[in-house]
């Protein structure tokens, strides 16, 4: 059996080397047109909607989100997104952008978590409010450097926990996040798989999100992206805006720190 395995590896090696040396023409073609797509991105429609929602008095408490503290003080939106996830003393945990927005919708406006978590992802007929709001918030950090903090002990702990979640193999197919995103130059079908354990590639976990997804033509946030990865990992479902997802996002964002965030993007 060992012999057979070695035969398999040897047979595979020339092909793998070839793929490592020549840039993938398909990926290059996608990149070329991705730029054109980003120039006029339907995500902007959701950005406009999110700003309206941020300013509007809504919910049982008839309040706006203008007093929401995204980490830089109540009401400060500019630059907040690139400094998330971060530790918030009022909840004694690290929160990512959408988790914090949901927290503000609950505490300031009186919405119920159960209601927000019931259908948290966009469909062809409905874009949940937090998705539009996080698109607006993210757009206010366009062109800024990612700088998720690692100052508070809980921020460092959360990073390490997120890293452990990233590498944890379990489930029906023995997958972890790293099964797809732990090595260089891989792809699923034609979709390139960035290696998120490396800083220069980790930025691709953050860049372009929230993203307008061409498939279905809906706006999705990182909450959706993480959820759908766990689905394909054949895991049970992570709770919406849960600490697990904040931890995972802390791991990915800190790895990408220092890269310029280009704002809401467009995705396959």
């Amino acid at each position: 059996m060992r012999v057979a395995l070695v035969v398999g590896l040897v047979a595979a090696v020339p092909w793998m080397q070839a793929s490592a040396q020549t840039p993938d023409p398909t990926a290059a073609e996608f990149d070329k047109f991705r730029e054109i797509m980003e120039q006029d991105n339907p995500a902007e429609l959701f950005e406009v909607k999110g700003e309206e929602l941020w300013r509007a008095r809504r919910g049982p408490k008839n309040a706006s989100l203008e007093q929401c503290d995204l980490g830089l003080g109540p009401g400060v939106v500019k630059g907040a997104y690139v400094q998330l996830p971060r530790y918030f003393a009022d909840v004694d945990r690290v929160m990512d952008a959408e988790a914090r927005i949901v927290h503000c919708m609950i505490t300031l406006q009186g919405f119920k978590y159960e209601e927000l978590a019931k259908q948290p992802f966009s469909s062809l007929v409905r874009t949940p409010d937090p998705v539009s709001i996080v698109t607006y918030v993210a757009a206010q950090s366009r062109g800024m450097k990612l700088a998720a903090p690692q100052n508070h002990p809980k921020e460092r702990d959360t990073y390490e926990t997120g890293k452990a979640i990233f590498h944890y193999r379990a489930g029906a197919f023995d997958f972890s996040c790293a099964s797809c995103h732990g090595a260089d130059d891989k792809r699923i079908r034609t979709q390139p798989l960035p290696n998120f354990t490396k800083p220069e590639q980790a930025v691709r976990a953050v860049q372009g999100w929230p993203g307008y997804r061409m498939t279905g033509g809906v706006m999705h946030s990182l909450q959706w992206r993480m959820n759908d990865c766990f689905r394909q990992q054949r895991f049970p479902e992570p709770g919406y805006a849960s600490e697990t997802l904040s931890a995972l996002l802390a791991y990915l964002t800190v790895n990408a720190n220092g890269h310029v965030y280009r704002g809401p993007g467009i995705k396959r």
Partner: protein
Amino acid sequence: MHDTRRTVLKGIWSVGALATAVGAGLLSPGRAFAAWNKGAFEAKSAIDAMKALGVANAEDSKAIEIRAPEIAENGAVVPIDITSNIPGTTAIAVFIEKNPFPYTGSFDFSQGAVPYVHLRVKIGESSPVRVVVTAGGKHYMTAKEVKVTIGGCGG
């Protein structure tokens, strides 16, 4: 196709039809062209759609540029840039030959508009994208193949 449109506009009965359409709010009064060509849009082949538009006799031209991906990342959103370098261009029509209804749209240029358009379309399977340009009452065409692939889980 504008020949057809002009012909339609000259016809006595169709002027009445157009007035009705304007009255019903289907067309804005500022819109000087004929109504949305149902026959062309419902044609199941590019050639039938071209006949319905009166542009089936187009000749090949190298003066039309189509910029579209060789392989589309996602058939649901394929970006296409079309530029006509033919003097006097007044319209550009687009046909995606393998789509169930190939005729995708016409773009009319007047009063200083440059004969250029960017649009994004759905392409169900790998297909030639055919463009017909109308200039000086004549029709010219060119085509470009766009491949559509199966993607992965990502995005």
